[in-house]
């Protein structure tokens, strides 16, 4: 009996021990994984300071060459040159690249290495309530060795809208978490459980308990930031967008247009008072909040699809979004306050006193804004009106240009182009583009414009919105070096109608008109996939979509060009031959 009992006990023991071990090992594994993720992710986290170690916030490096994200309200307090501490204990020089004051985002670049530890970007639209998340940064400026503080929590809400808090900062479509976000955490990353950046922490609901975490913090969603990243990399002050129309709930609870400006794209393309908004950028709109939330994630100037319903019929238009602020308004707002320190906790930062660097002998040509900058920052900074750091606009412009050059070398020669083919509506065509003029012969007639003259008024052929000027400038983009244009800037990235992805956009102006080129890069080759020629601000541009790039007569050229004006197809040119004539 005793033997039996002890046998039984032994059996049970084995069973329970192995059961405990089974339960324990996933627990241990989960813990080990958490530790691994936190350790890896923390390598990319920044403690951001002003040039002399003042101010303070957080940030995260997102590329090996040192591009990093933070909050605008953090970098604004630091100025154009910053010091960033990393988990390795090193302090790096950093320079401001671009800012989004409305969205509270800043892009900076760490200098001095090309192998910075960096974090991958996640997809914030895939985040759901209840997911675990890490917050990392430098709350209360605790870490004197820059090791980030890690807090852990769940996602409490997604697609949250936070009204501007007495400032221009508006948080749209943001993530809400109960992981502790405290002063000093601003600008730091919100990581998902895999260590991917899903947001930039920037705001909490603080009230009577003082400026400390009360279990509710907000992060700007990384998908919104991805939309603005191109503009920011271009050294710009990014602006958010408006449709030029107001929406409200009607008595049936539908979202309808309650007010619309008559000079805006949406009106020109047919949107009217009382039309019901069905979807925006592919997302269905169920409430005014949803509409505001969604509109807030797009930069000014993007063209996005909008579907509206009138008399039970749905219509989709592609609307170019207007800026939320007047030209120059944001610049005015951000310039005079460079040295404010809003994100500083009441206690002095416990960072070791930075030895005051001996005053550098200033070269006489150094502008006041660059005075006191370390040499390495000065090499990466250029001021120009409308830009935070014009140096990076040149970097991006040159990057796109050199890609285009490599892909389309034979087209760079100074000779005129002769293009022949069939137009869907207007029969056989012959297009001639040179430095001086652009000419098209169609079955319906011939048109010619002078490219040296005023392009705002030469909008031939009729009803094309300025097709010849558009194509003429397109050729000049290949032959004319950037220096020879009035302005030729990198505008950031933007989507194209009917296609997914983002294109690099170059904006060039000539003869009073403006042309936007949408440059796509696939497998190392760059192509201009779309053009938008705008003779003036409030007029429908001539849109040309260039498709099916192929070798035509030895030249890398599109097989098809679709010309659209105001959401109507003007014609489709199908190209059969291309020749670069001898000058």
């Amino acid at each position, binding site marked *: 009996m005793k033997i039996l009992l002890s046998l039984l006990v032994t059996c049970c023991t084995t069973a329970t021990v192995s059961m405990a071990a089974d339960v324990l090992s996933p627990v241990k594994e989960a813990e080990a994984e958490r530790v691994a993720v936190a350790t890896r992710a923390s390598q990319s986290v920044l403690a951001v300071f002003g040039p002399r170690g003042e101010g303070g916030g957080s940030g995260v490096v997102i590329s090996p060459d040192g591009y990093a994200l933070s909050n605008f309200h953090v970098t604004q307090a630091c100025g154009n040159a910053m010091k960033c501490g990393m988990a390795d204990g090193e302090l790096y020089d950093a320079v401001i690249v671009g800012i989004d004051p409305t969205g509270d985002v800043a892009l900076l670049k760490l200098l001095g290495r090309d192998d910075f530890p960096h974090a991958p970007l996640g997809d914030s639209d895939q985040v759901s309530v209840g997911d675990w998340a890490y917050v990392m940064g430098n709350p209360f400026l605790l870490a004197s060795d820059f090791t980030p503080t890690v807090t852990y929590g769940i*996602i409490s809400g997604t697609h*949250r809208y936070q009204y501007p808090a007495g400032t221009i900062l508006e948080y749209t479509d943001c993530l809400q978490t109960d992981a502790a976000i405290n002063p000093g955490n601003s600008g730091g990353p919100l990581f998902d459980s895999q260590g991917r950046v899903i947001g930039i922490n920037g705001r909490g609901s603080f009230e*009577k308990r003082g400026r400390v975490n009360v279990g509710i913090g907000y992060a700007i969603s990384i998908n919104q930031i991805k939309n603005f990243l191109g503009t920011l990399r271009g050294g710009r002050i990014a602006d958010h967008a408006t449709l030029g129309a107001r929406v409200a709930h009607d008595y049936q609870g539908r979202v309808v247009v309650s007010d619309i400006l008559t000079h805006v794209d949406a009106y020109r393309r047919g949107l009217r008072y009382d039309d019901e908004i069905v979807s925006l950028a592919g997302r269905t709109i169920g*409430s005014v909040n949803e509409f505001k939330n969604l509109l807030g994630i797009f930069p000014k100037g993007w063209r996005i699809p909008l579907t509206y319903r009138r008399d039970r019929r749905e219509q989709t238009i592609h609307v170019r979004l207007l800026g939320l602020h007047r030209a120059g308004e944001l610049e005015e707002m951000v310039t005079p306050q460079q040295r404010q320190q809003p994100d500083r906790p009441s206690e002095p930062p416990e960072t070791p006193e930075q030895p005051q660097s001996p005053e550098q002998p200033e070269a006489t040509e150094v502008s006041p804004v660059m005075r006191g900058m370390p040499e390495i920052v000065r090499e990466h900074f250029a001021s120009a009106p409308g830009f935070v750091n014009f140096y990076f606009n040149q970097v991006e412009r040159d990057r796109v240009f050199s890609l285009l050059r490599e892909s389309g070398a034979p087209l760079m020669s100074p000779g005129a182009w002769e293009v022949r083919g069939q137009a869907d509506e207007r029969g056989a065509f012959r297009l001639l583009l040179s430095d001086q003029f652009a000419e098209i012969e169609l079955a319906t007639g011939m048109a010619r414009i002078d490219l040296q003259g005023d392009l705002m008024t030469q909008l031939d052929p009729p009803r094309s919105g300025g097709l010849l000027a558009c194509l003429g400038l397109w050729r000049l983009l290949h032959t004319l070096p950037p220096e020879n244009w009035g302005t030729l800037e990198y505008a950031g990235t933007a989507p194209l109608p009917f296609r997914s992805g983002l294109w690099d956009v170059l904006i060039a102006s000539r003869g009073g008109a403006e042309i936007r080129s949408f440059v796509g890069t696939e497998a190392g080759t760059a192509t201009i996939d779309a053009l938008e020629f705008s003779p003036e601000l409030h007029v429908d541009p001539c849109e040309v979509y260039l498709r099916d790039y192929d070798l035509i007569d030895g030249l890398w050229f599109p097989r098809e060009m679709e010309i659209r004006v105001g959401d109507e197809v003007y014609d489709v040119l199908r190209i059969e031959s291309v020749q670069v004539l001898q000058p």
Partner: protein
Amino acid sequence: MVRTGTGTRHTARMSVLLACWLLGNPTAWGDVPSPDVLRQVQSKVVKIYGAGGIRGLEPYQTGLLISAEGHILTVWSTVLDTVEITVVLDDGSRHSATLQDTDVSLEMALLKIDASDVPYFDLVEVAEVETGTWVLAFSNLFGVAAGDEPVSVQHGCVSARIDLDARRGVFSTPYRGPVYVVDAIVNNPGAAGGALTDYQGRLVGLLGKELRDARTSLWLNYAIPLTTLQPTLQAMLEGSARPDNPFDQLRPAEPWDLPQTGILLVPDVLDKTPPFVDAVAPESPGRTAGLLPDDLIVYVGEELVTSCQAVRESLAMLDARQPLRMTVMRGDELRQYEIPPQAENRTRE
């Protein structure tokens, strides 16, 4: 051999305990509560809008659907002090609500909207949880969610289950019962009336109003166990007689009050008027004991008192058949006086 046996058995018992504990708390180690559970709970939580909006009083709070016909359990507060109470359900639909019943000692209110077939918390499936259990808090804290936006979710762990009356006068609430203290900051503006659930989505408690410890200035994070509210709530729903206030039994049948002592305090004009003695009636028990005008009452019995209100509350909890001890500050000196029992003299008043 025998020793080994005992050892093994001991290990076995430990293992069983460990295994049970781990199985009982599978979520303690980072498991995520299932999205289905979260959505289900969110669909039963409503946003309540009412009076307020001035002097730091938020005009909104949270509530819980507890019947398919639209009964809503929430916290009794100034938000409900209006004829126009609006309730917004998880699907974004707006309803005007009527205040059906309140219980001031439990700080609880029952609202009703005209509805049928709405998702609700079944009061039969209410859970009691142990200290150390992982819990979720659902509320519309700071009014973050509007329309059909789901309410916020926070996570935490039950740190303790204690009685809130442990120190009278410390928290300004009439509630004197047990609470779950949580390690997450769940009692924010607008969160009152929200749900505390376990990771399986079972209702555990009702998030209370914001409470601040008067002595330490710390905010309490807590929820009132639903099992405490349940008898009264059931009676409210059925329209039957309320059970006795469970906290009334703590009060003596014949408590002390100020008139018995002959002490008159300064006019109570502030939130926390310091309890200075304004006057003491001649030949009153207070005067006989030695109390004088301008004394600052510091202790009533064992209780530290910081306001006139706290003095009254503390007296009400003391039996008048027992001597009353009071500690006062006179000048910079602490003095203690004892007033003899007065209960038998009550008829005189």
